């Protein structure tokens, strides 16, 4: 049985919490911080929800006291009315999440579910998770994952830099959060930043801030993440994608604990724990000079390798059970289970997208399946196909740069350039359009209205492109019939996008 501690006087919130968490969570409520049970015998709640509607100036101190008494449980802040200043401050101080507005079970439920999973994850990282343990991505007791749990436990409260290596979809940010929650800086903020998602020119200012007038458009001083995160933990995701300049600056911060804002003269001292992650082969990049080797060694003081799903022997059935259970709660579609033959197919598949891919496949299947039991016929063709599963993403491991979902674009353009083509731009646009539209149609299950919305183009324009690019939305081929060769054909002739469309029961294919 799990416990939720609510702090606040409003009975509206208490009844809403009851409605949101269901009967399996005990709710303890106190009307003030002083009444929170304290001391070693008090028993720790799994999550804390605090109503800050009536809080004033002293909010931050009150919040620290809540965190202290909550003994490391995730704290969710709720408020009837908007108090954005306080909300920002509380998030900065490490609140797990913030919800503003009148009590509403539908909005609280997903938040509480996540927080409870997080609590399960961070409380007992060293223990094998039982089949129905409410942990998130870290379900599993395979030896490979046991090593990860132990590594998190060993490194969390040593104030050192940690490097997390793992393929995409393995849960690197979750490891970082677990280290943070167990670490000596868990009272400080946790700030994640994806170095690959921020345009090159903005990353420096994002990390270090800038002075007013540092460049065109810098009309006021900006505080960067290193400054914002004082006393906390900074999670640098995709560090393998940083430019040499940013690498040099990060190295300096790590070595000397100081940095300057862009366009600024004053050196600022920092007090931040850095956790870095990448899905690229950082050692290889350092060897070939694409990544500074001094920075690589500095980041890799303590390295955690997250295993890909295909190496987590025995974890897949637990993960499937857990994920289906969660969808049952979240989507309310009734419980589903997987037939032994379907489970066998899931275990044979290589899962290039790891747990994230498993989740998305199971979600599609859950929405699509006609009965409570998922049978092989319900699974996407890539998984139904015997033999080595073709990878729809065209993952090309011979070159680290292509390991991520590049779809072969780099090679395509390079080949064109070397062939002396004089219309590389137009060819590249066609390539990108074709793959983008295929990806989006896959995402929307073939729904063209929704796809046009996401793309920001009209339906007519999307229809024309689909026709011009030769994208085929084909009917589903039932097992027993011929299964289309769902694999990358490479080159410029187009790629068969290998997926399963929930709405249409069909596939989207980009033809020649």
């Amino acid at each position, binding site marked *: 049985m799990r416990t939720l501690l609510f702090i606040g006087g409003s009975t509206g919130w208490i009844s809403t919490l009851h409605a949101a968490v269901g009967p399996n969570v005990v709710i303890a409520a106190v009307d003030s911080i002083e009444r929170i049970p304290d001391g070693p015998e008090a028993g720790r709640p799994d999550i804390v929800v605090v109503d800050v509607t009536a809080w004033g100036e002293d909010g931050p101190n009150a919040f620290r006291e809540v965190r202290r008494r909550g003994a490391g449980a995730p704290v969710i802040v709720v408020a009837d009315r908007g108090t954005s200043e306080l909300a920002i401050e509380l998030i900065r101080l490490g609140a797990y999440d913030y919800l503003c507005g009148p009590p509403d079970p539908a909005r609280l439920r997903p938040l509480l579910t996540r927080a409870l999973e997080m609590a399960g994850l961070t409380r007992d990282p060293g223990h094998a998770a039982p089949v129905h343990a409410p942990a998130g991505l870290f379900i599993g007791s395979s030896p490979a994952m046991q090593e990860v749990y132990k590594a998190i436990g060993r490194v969390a409260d040593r104030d050192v830099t940690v490097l997390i290596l793992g393929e995409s979809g393995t849960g690197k940010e979750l490891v970082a959060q677990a280290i943070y929650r167990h670490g000596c800086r868990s009272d400080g903020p946790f700030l994640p930043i994806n170095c690959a998602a921020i345009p090159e020119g903005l990353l420096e200012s994002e990390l270090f801030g800038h002075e007013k007038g540092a460049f065109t458009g810098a009309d006021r001083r900006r505080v960067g993440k290193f400054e914002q995160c004082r006393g906390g933990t900074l999670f640098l995701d995709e560090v393998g994608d*940083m430019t040499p300049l940013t690498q040099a600056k990060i190295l300096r911060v790590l070595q000397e604990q100081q940095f300057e804002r862009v366009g600024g003269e004053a050196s600022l001292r920092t007090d931040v724990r850095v956790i870095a992650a990448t899905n690229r082969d950082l050692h290889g990049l350092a060897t070939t000079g694409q990544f500074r080797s001094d920075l690589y060694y500095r980041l890799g003081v303590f390295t955690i390798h997250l295993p890909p799903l295909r190496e987590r022997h025995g974890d897949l059935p637990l993960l499937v059970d857990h994920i289906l259970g969660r969808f049952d709660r979240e989507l309310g579609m009734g419980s589903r289970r997987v037939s032994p033959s379907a489970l066998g197919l899931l275990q044979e598949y290589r899962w290039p997208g790891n747990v994230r891919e498993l989740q998305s496949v199971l979600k599609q299947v859950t929405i699509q399946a006609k009965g409570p039991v998922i049978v092989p016929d319900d699974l996407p063709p890539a998984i139904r196909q015997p033999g080595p599963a073709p990878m729809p993403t065209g993952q090309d491991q011979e070159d680290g740069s292509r390991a991520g979902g590049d779809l072969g*674009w780099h090679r395509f353009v390079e080949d064109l350039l070397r062939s002396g083509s004089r219309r590389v731009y137009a060819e590249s646009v066609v390539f990108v359009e074709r793959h983008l539209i295929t990806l989006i149609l896959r995402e929307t299950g073939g729904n063209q209205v929704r796809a046009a919305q996401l793309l920001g183009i009209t339906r007519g324009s999307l229809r024309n492109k689909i026709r011009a690019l030769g994208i085929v939305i084909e009917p589903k081929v039932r097992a027993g019939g011929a299964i289309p060769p769902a694999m990358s054909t490479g080159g410029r002739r187009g790629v068969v996008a290998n997926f399963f469309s929930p709405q249409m029961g069909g596939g989207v294919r980009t033809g020649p």
Partner: protein
Amino acid sequence: MSPTPDWERFVRDRIRSGSQDLYQESLRLMDRYLIRLTLRVTGGDHLRAASALGLTPEEFRAKLRDSSPSGP
């Protein structure tokens, strides 16, 4: 920045962030990488890069400007 964009991740991240302009966003991302890659292959020669891409020198310069580091 890696030599090649991770299209799948980009699309996923942008959908999650609620983007409704993925077409233009993708072309802008492509521009950034394409300009850089072309310049690498032509050894930094802007004119040759523009000609390989099939762009006028003016179009090329505009794209180069839009895709290089500036302010937020």
